[in-house]
């Protein structure tokens, strides 16, 4: 598992450096553009999946806690709202970074 993770991360790093090298002259060729689009898509997918998992786990725990102890429902709800706000902000950051990569890339003239 660790070996696979290392290989995958190295591949992603190499691909991102290649995109930067292609875009260094101010114009992005088709290969670099494709890699950038792929990176943005994969990045957003990972962010959405992670945030979805996190929110789902938080919601599940909150529902279980409220069902076991309904009197603690108010406190659980407050914690749930704060947790969801934290997680959602991460998804918004990922969206901003992907928008920058796709349409406002600082490495492209």
């Amino acid at each position, binding site marked *: 598992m660790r070996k696979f993770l290392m290989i995958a991360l190295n591949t992603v790093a190499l691909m991102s450096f290649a995109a930067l090298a292609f875009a260094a002259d101010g114009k992005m060729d088709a290969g670099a553009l494709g890699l950038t689009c792929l990176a943005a898509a994969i990045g957003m997918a990972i962010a959405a999946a992670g945030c979805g998992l996190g929110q789902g786990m938080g919601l599940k725990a909150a529902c279980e806690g409220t069902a076991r102890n309904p009197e603690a*429902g108010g406190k659980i709800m407050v914690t749930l*709202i*704060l947790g969801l*706000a934290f997680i959602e902000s991460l998804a918004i*950051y990922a969206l*901003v970074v992907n928008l*920058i990569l796709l349409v406002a890339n600082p490495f492209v003239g």
Partner: protein
Amino acid sequence: MLKSLARKTDEWLWHKGFRASEIRLLLRCQILVSGASLLAGVACAPFWDWGLWFGVGAALSTFNFYALAKFVQGIVFLPYTRAMAAGLMFRFYGRLLLTGLVLFGLIVWLKVSVSALLAGLSTCVLSIAAWGIARGAGQKVKEA
């Protein structure tokens, strides 16, 4: 003046259905911070637009936090009906769509300073973290 503004905001939030006092406190702080930064940003806009985009980011973050808190309270407190569930879902996804479109417009069309936008968007996270730290410190003082 600040106290009266805070009290009025608190009353307005109560009328909007925010019954949890902690959430009301956080939302009140967030609304005041984003309003102040937006006003300061508009005032400084002719010679320093970073502040304006910071204020816009803070306002967007506040809107998201407000809508999320309202959504969760709606799920917890409102009696379940099909229309209620459909309305909540519609508003939830509408908010996400609106946030995405606003961010797209700001970054792609207006080409705003991304650092300012991200700093503004982080105000919500920062105020929650500050509230948590303050609450933890208060509890430690009580225990001691």
